[in-house]
């Protein structure tokens, strides 16, 4: 689809992106976790929230770079799969999906707590009970699944109203709470290890900003709005959480907070009592004011938990979709409902698992920690993905936002380490864990450390992802991991400085592959370089908008075809006694992939085949040939293979015109002749118009002088060659007529800049099209475009 269409699909500005992030962030976390966090670490849990925010901020920076570089549905999963391959893709895909379902279950139980416990005192029949909470959570989760299944319309303005009123409510809570003068008792009663452990518990309140990344394709001006929205959506809640913990632990005792199911509402009720006497003119009883505050917070908590769970269910469906797109998951799950236009199967699956998790009664703290765990694993890999993509520089990855250069290796490295550190202390406690008691086998078998329940569940989910990869995904998902490219972005051979001669040969057609490689080998051999090598490239093009017929079978067929082509290339190279490497690439656009290979391999020459007819509308010679020939920074040769047995041998003729690239064509011809040996002759042909130029030189003499001059410029004057000068009024038809006498015609590009419509120039292209022989069009390095490309590459790596 065109860029114009893409713009139409973008309807989220900064505010919308920010509120989507905030709406998911301000969820059950801030309303439920104060009681758990206070119990674990006392007032010092403020520090836990603060560090949770820092870990998220680092992840937000890395995610912003990835999201602007690859604005695709699926968020973190997609980036990790792209950069690290389907093995890690399976882990993160399932991990995120599991994380989102655990988080949804957590939000829903938080909803249940506030809904029932909060309303219980006012509506007596809703007695406070575990069963009641679970039932309320189940009903609401089922309703949300239904709303998303049936595609009930939600509007952006409703979303904005909910989020802004939540923000207002929390700000009011903070302001009034601060005014009431909270008094913190002992700041850190449980010690710093407990504070560190609490980071893992509260991290679930920070996973929401991810939705901004998953909406990257819909954000206007993403290079600015996306990172801003993400950072703002992390910083705002972090400050709020720290503030809420301060007010909460300063207002109620830790024991009271821990005992409460609705800590924030209780805190509001408590500090508002003190304001009753301050209200002028009317007398308000402290109890009534407290109750009003409590109800306001309960309504806020209900809205917040619902909006978080809603966003999580939709995010989970996007992860499923992205996994299906990469063949890691069955596409069946991602069918869009005919009527409701929703991914109904995926939503149902997410909803059902969420319901099961609620019903199992895993405990709200465990649900939160498992969700945290899965997201910390994801973000650790996201940081790795940033580094891999920066080093591998794939063609289709051009992030419009980049982590500022002063922060670059620092942010992803620190971010990944921070995630791992939090994970480690969540999983491992340094107490011996008895696996088997003495009574069972006689000896006590124990680990020197304990693995927590959360660690066991989390590692189990990762193991399930790995198992999934080996049993399902490995055979289906084409590996496009960039790790290898990242480790060795430049081929190792280039490092020794010998300037090995490399010819990149894109191959696509098994019938012409052999001749193309043979001619490229001839060119490579002629360079006095034993290490000269060919690089055979085949690109599987996956269009931006993949269409209907692309089922799994077709995909496998293409991969197999690619393998066959490249293995044939290796056999041919062995016969020809030339070094050959193959590159099998899956890419969006063949032309730019080839250009990228040329640059990455530091190639000297690109050797392309051409079917011999110009393409119709937007391209001159072909959608792949045009950009490669137009922009390659090295020699470029385009070959139309003739009907004879061995193209590139026999009588070879060079059009010795005055074009800037005629010497390149002459060199190519000389290379073919040298390699063919006895079987080949070389003729340099020049066409002169009868009365043109100087009086004292006949057209014949003029032509011969030009030919000798060309041979000298091409550096082939030592070779044996025939001169042939044709005198004719119509140059082009004379060339076409003369061409019939030869087996192979070499012609240099006549055009020198990248601006004109033709790729090689009108005469070479006319010859290529009209002459039923092997035609070789050649040009030298494209100096001007090279420098622009270099400049851009340079700029990108610096900024």
């Amino acid at each position, binding site marked *: *689809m065109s860029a114009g*269409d893409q713009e*139409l*699909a973008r*309807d*989220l500005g900064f505010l*919308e992106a920010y*509120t*989507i992030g905030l709406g998911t962030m301000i969820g059950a976390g801030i309303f439920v976790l104060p009681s758990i966090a206070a119990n674990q670490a006392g007032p010092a849990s403020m520090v836990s929230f603060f560090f949770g925010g820092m870990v998220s901020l680092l992840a937000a920076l890395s995610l912003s770079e990835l999201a602007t570089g690859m604005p*695709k*549905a*699926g968020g973190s999963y997609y980036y990790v799969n792209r950069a690290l391959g389907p093995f890690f893709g399976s882990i993160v895909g399932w991990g995120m999906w599991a994380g989102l379902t655990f988080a949804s279950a957590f939000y829903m139980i938080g909803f249940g707590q506030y809904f029932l416990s909060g309303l219980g005192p006012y509506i007596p029949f809703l007695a406070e009970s575990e069963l009641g909470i679970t039932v309320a959570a189940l009903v609401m989760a089922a309703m949300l699944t239904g709303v*998303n299944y*049936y*595609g*009930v*319309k*939600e*509007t*952006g*303005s*409703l*979303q*904005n109203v909910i989020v802004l009123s939540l923000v207002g409510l929390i700000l009011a809570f903070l302001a009034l709470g601060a005014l009431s003068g909270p008094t913190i008792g002992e700041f850190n009663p449980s010690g710093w290890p407990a504070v560190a452990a609490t980071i893992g518990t509260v991290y679930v309140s920070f996973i929401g900003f991810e*939705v901004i990344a*998953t*909406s990257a*394709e*819909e954000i206007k001006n993403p290079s600015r709005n996306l990172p801003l929205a993400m950072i703002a959506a992390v910083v705002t809640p972090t400050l709020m959480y720290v503030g809420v913990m301060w007010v909460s632990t300063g207002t109620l005792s830790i024991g009271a907070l821990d005992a409460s199911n609705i800590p924030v509402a209780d805190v509001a009720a408590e500090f508002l009592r003190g304001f009753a006497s301050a209200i002028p003119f009317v007398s308000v009883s402290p109890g009534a004011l407290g109750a009003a505050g409590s109800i306001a917070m309960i309504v806020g908590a209900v809205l917040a938990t619902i909006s978080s769970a*809603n*966003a999580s269910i*939709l*995010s989970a*469906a*996007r992860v499923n*979709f*992205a996994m299906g*797109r990469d063949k890691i998951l069955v596409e069946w799950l*991602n069918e*869009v409902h*005919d*009527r*409701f*236009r*929703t*991914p109904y199967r995926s*939503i149902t699956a997410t909803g059902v698992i969420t319901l099961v998790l609620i019903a199992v009664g895993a405990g709200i703290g465990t649900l939160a920690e498992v969700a945290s765990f899965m997201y910390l694993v994801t973000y650790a890999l996201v940081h790795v993905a940033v580094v891999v993509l920066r080093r591998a520089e794939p063609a289709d990855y051009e992030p419009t936002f980049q982590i500022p250069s002063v922060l670059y290796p620092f942010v992803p490295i620190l971010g990944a380490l921070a995630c791992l550190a939090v994970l480690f202390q969540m999983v491992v406690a340094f107490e011996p864990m008895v696996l088997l008691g003495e009574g069972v086998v006689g000896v006590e078998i124990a680990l020197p450390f304990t693995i927590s329940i959360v660690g066991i569940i989390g590692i189990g989910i990762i193991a399930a992802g790995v198992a999934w990869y080996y049993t399902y995904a490995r055979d289906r998902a084409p590996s496009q991991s960039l790790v290898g490219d990242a480790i060795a972005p430049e081929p190792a051979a280039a490092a020794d400085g010998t300037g090995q001669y490399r010819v990149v040969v894109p191959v696509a057609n098994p019938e012409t592959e052999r001749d193309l490689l043979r001619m490229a080998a001839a060119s490579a051999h002629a360079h006095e370089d034993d290490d000269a090598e060919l690089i055979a490239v085949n690109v599987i093009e996956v269009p931006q*908008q*993949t*269409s*209907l017929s692309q089922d799994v079978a077709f995909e496998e067929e293409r991969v197999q075809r690619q393998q066959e082509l490249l293995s044939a290339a290796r056999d041919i190279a062995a016969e020809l006694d030339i070094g050959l490497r193959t590159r099998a690439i899956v890419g969006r656009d063949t032309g730019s992939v080839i250009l990228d290979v040329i640059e990455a391999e530091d190639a000297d020459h690109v050797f392309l085949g051409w079917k011999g007819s110009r393409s119709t509308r937007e391209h001159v010679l072909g959608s792949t040939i045009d950009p490669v020939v137009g922009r390659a920074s090295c020699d470029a040769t385009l070959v139309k293979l003739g009907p004879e047995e061995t193209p590139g041998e026999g009588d070879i003729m060079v059009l010795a015109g005055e074009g800037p690239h005629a010497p390149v064509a002459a060199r190519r011809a000389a290379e073919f002749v040298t390699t063919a040996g006895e079987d080949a002759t070389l003729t340099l042909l020049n066409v002169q118009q009868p009365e043109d130029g100087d009086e004292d030189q006949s057209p014949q003499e003029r032509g011969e002088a030009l030919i000798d001059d060309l041979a000298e410029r091409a550096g082939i004057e030592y070779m044996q060659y025939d001169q042939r000068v044709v005198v004719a009024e119509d140059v082009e038809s004379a060339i076409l007529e003369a061409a019939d006498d030869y087996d192979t015609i070499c012609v240099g590009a006549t055009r020198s800049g990248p601006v004109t419509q033709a790729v090689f120039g009108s005469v070479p292209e006319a010859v290529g099209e009209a002459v039923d022989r092997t035609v070789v069009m050649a040009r030298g390095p494209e100096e001007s475009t090279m420098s622009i490309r270099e400049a851009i590459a340079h700029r990108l790596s610096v900024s």
Partner: protein
Amino acid sequence: MIVPIASKSDARATTRALASHVDSVAGTVVAVHVIEKAGGAPDKASIEQRERDTEEMFDIVRTQLEAYDVDLETEILYGTDVAETIVEAAHEMDASSIVFTPRGGSRWVRLLAGDVALSLISGSDLPVVVLPDEPEEDDE
């Protein structure tokens, strides 16, 4: 004329109906599908997912109309209000009429998914042609 397509089954139904009235079709048929945006709230499905689905709808239309002498164009539209987006697009491309087949559906379904047909008929200032849903000849 502009022909809104709502889904894959609607693509089949609409082209079937269109084909049997093909004699009266003059000019170009522009098949459109509106990808409904929530305008700020998270969408139910990602844009890309729905774009793929839309291409499948257009493929159905294309294949079924192949046998007829009709100029066909396709376009994906984006908007928060489906009916409004169709009418606006119809004006932009100077369409003479909006042609579609109603999808039916119970009251309950209409309540949940919205009733685009009704909004189109009541909200359009261009002629709206409602083609009856032809029975399917062969099962799929």
